[in-house]
């Protein structure tokens, strides 16, 4: 933020009247500077001061909303360059590009792929969030393509990619109510483009030949009173696109320059030149480094499995570890004879443990209690993964009805709980498992042979 606590203090009445709820004006100012209090809490501030302050304390990077209802996505609003400094806020989104000059069968296949690629991973629905509809040269075919996608049953937000304002005008008529991204403002057409989107406050995609030109263009668009923008840092080369994307975010957050305080759209389909694996590497790169909408040529599980997993990881708040849902999970077709394993609800632990169990191919029931979302030893040390927590999970999860097997395997790192568990779960044979997940298959196979 541009203003310090002392800078804000100078604008307050300095009367320490406590009307804001804080003991002194200085204390209040410090809170405002740190973002913990709203400047409007002070009823004695002059109008000019409030205006000056709200401008200065506004976030450096805007949050832009595209789409509507089920397909509404927030982009941008980031505050740091590296996730460990605080957290990344709004995850990047994936788009697939269609254009009217593609073969119909090609378009149908891509639409079908988008429909097919849909799964849930740790409580998050993974799917293609956007479709880019790119105009090449045939207006009637282009409008027909938009209608086709609209009636296809695809649940996506729209990006209209078109630099011809006349065509954009007609295209917008078709999907205006869906709050699409109108992409294609350049140095020649920006006045007309702003005129098209301003009334409905539709987000506008902005492109230029280089960074300096983009900066001037954004300034000019802002002068028209329009600030609902998405920037395209793209260039012909991967190297230049990467530099532009990094520089935009640095100029914005480090240079505290709001001109570049907008999310980005990157046409990776063009940069990767049709190589799907290169789309994957570039998507990873721009998931880490400042891409907001990543446009691909197609979406399938081959691309999605690594990319959505990485995105989910990177956009986890470092202060709030990912947790799996408490409950019972049957692995490898567990049935009424399968043994039971218990571990913590920390997503990373669960994934590593369940991965090893799956590798063993031995049917197992996993019981996951509420252990606070930490690793085994951390949860245990915090008193959240104790014999009574495990006992409650066994008794309340319904596992005793799911299997007749009364073998309970606990993590090797909490071997100390064995005695207590044997007392609280007298029907169960408590087995101390391995201290490292990599040895689980050996343990399970050994037990299965017996």
């Amino acid at each position, binding site marked *: 933020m541009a203003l310090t606590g002392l800078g804000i203090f100078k604008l307050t009445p300095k009367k320490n009247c406590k009307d804001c709820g804080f003991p002194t004006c200085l204390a209040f100012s410090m809170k405002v500077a740190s973002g913990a209090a709203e400047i409007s809490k002070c009823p004695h501030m002059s109008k000019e001061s409030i205006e000056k302050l709200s401008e200065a304390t506004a976030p450096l990077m805007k949050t832009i909303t595209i789409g509507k209802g089920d397909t509404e996505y927030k982009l941008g609003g980031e505050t740091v360059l590296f996730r460990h400094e605080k957290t990344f806020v709004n995850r990047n989104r994936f788009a697939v590009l269609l254009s009217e000059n593609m073969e119909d069968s090609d378009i149908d296949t891509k639409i079908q792929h988008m429909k097919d690629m849909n799964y849930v991973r740790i409580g998050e629905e993974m799917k293609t969030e956007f479709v880019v509809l790119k105009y090449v040269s045939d207006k009637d075919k282009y409008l027909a393509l938009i209608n086709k996608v609209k009636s296809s049953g695809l649940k996506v937000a729209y990006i209209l990619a078109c630099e011809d304002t006349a065509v954009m005008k007609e295209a917008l008529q078709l999907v205006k109510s869906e709050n699409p991204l109108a992409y294609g403002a350049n140095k020649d057409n920006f006045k007309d483009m702003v005129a098209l989107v301003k009334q409905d406050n539709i987000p506008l995609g902005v492109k230029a030949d280089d960074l300096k030109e983009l*900066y001037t263009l954004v300034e000019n668009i802002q002068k028209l009173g329009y600030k609902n923008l998405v920037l395209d840092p793209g260039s012909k080369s991967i190297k230049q696109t990467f530099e532009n994307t990094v520089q935009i975010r640095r100029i914005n957050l480090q240079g505290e320059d709001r001109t570049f305080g907008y999310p980005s759209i990157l046409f990776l389909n063009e940069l990767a030149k049709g190589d799907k694996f290169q789309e994957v590497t570039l998507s990873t790169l721009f998931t880490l480094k400042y891409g907001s909408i990543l446009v691909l040529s197609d979406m399938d599980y081959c691309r999605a499995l690594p990319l959505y997993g990485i995105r989910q990881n990177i956009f986890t708040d470092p202060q709030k570890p990912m947790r799996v849902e408490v409950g019972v999970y049957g692995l490898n077709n567990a049935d009424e004879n399968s043994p039971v394993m218990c571990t913590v609800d920390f997503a990373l632990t669960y994934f590593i443990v369940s991965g090893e169990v799956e590798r063993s191919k031995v049917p197992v029931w996993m019981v996951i209690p509420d252990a606070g979302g930490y690793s085994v030893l951390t949860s245990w040390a915090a008193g959240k993964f104790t014999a009574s927590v495990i006992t409650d999970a066994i008794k309340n999860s319904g596992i005793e009805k799911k299997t007749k097997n009364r073998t309970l395997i606990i993590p090797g790192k909490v071997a100390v709980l064995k005695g207590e568990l044997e007392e609280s779960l007298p029907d169960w044979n408590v087995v101390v498992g391995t201290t490292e997940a990599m040895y689980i298959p050996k343990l399970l196979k050994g037990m299965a042979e017996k």
Partner: protein
Amino acid sequence: MFKKPIQKYTGKIGEVEIGTGEKAVKLGGESVLPFYSFDGNTGNTPKIGMEISDVYPEGWTNTLKELYKDVSNDTVKWAQFVEKKYSPDFICLRLVSADPNGKDSSPEDCAEKVKAVVEAIKTPLLVAGTGNHEKDAKLFEKIAQAAEGHNVLLMSAVEDNYKTVAAAGVLAYNNKVVAESSVDINLAKQINILINQLGIGNENVVDNVGCSAGGYGYEYVISTLDRVKLAALTQNDKTLQIPIISPVSSETWKSKESVEPEEEAPEWGNQEDRGISMEVAAAAGVLASGSNAIILRHPKSVEVMRSFISELLG
């Protein structure tokens, strides 16, 4: 006004050379964040190593088993095949047979094997142990001796065994050693300092700060890399100015996404493609966050990552 902020760098990653002769490679040497050529010197191009194993690769995907079917029962032939056909920057020989939970072959036998391989190829060699700290200590002592003069990279020394692995590897037999820690900047620092205290300089050490497949705690890997490189480059932390290697393949190829056969998950499509995709995704991310070398398994992944690196460096 349009103004690019100036990024201040105060440190530089040291260089470590592995191998000998014309094909020797240098890791590290950069004084800016990865691929930030607009900020300054990006150092040596990130290096790509290919993984082979000293036993028949039972757990590898069918296409790879097919690809290597004529050579995978003979480690020397396999190494020569990979060198000739794919010319990777280095070869990673994983001593699967030494695993105490498996065949448990003796350090002497393994050392002989390593000697035969290193003498048969010109490409720099990295020798990966079993992950069992006790066994690795015994293993690397013998291997370091057998590979003396070839400047191989031994992976890895950990807190439990660095005294043996690093001392034998570097001090006694002049090889290089990987210092392994587990996704935490302070642990990375600690193992480096411990190794330094043996009288081993940074020029003999490569760090493995941890690696994972995408979706499996990858955020810890990325944030550790980010933090280590920022500390080394912008705070001039000398204990972290060490090039980093990421063993990508051994993590990604055991993930469910790579292992699940197509019959079990028809909607996921071609298993081999999924495996490559998981491998290149994880590789791209660690390179973008500061790895100076990656270990890969699939030849297609090597090709994709070569092009990724050269495109980004331009």
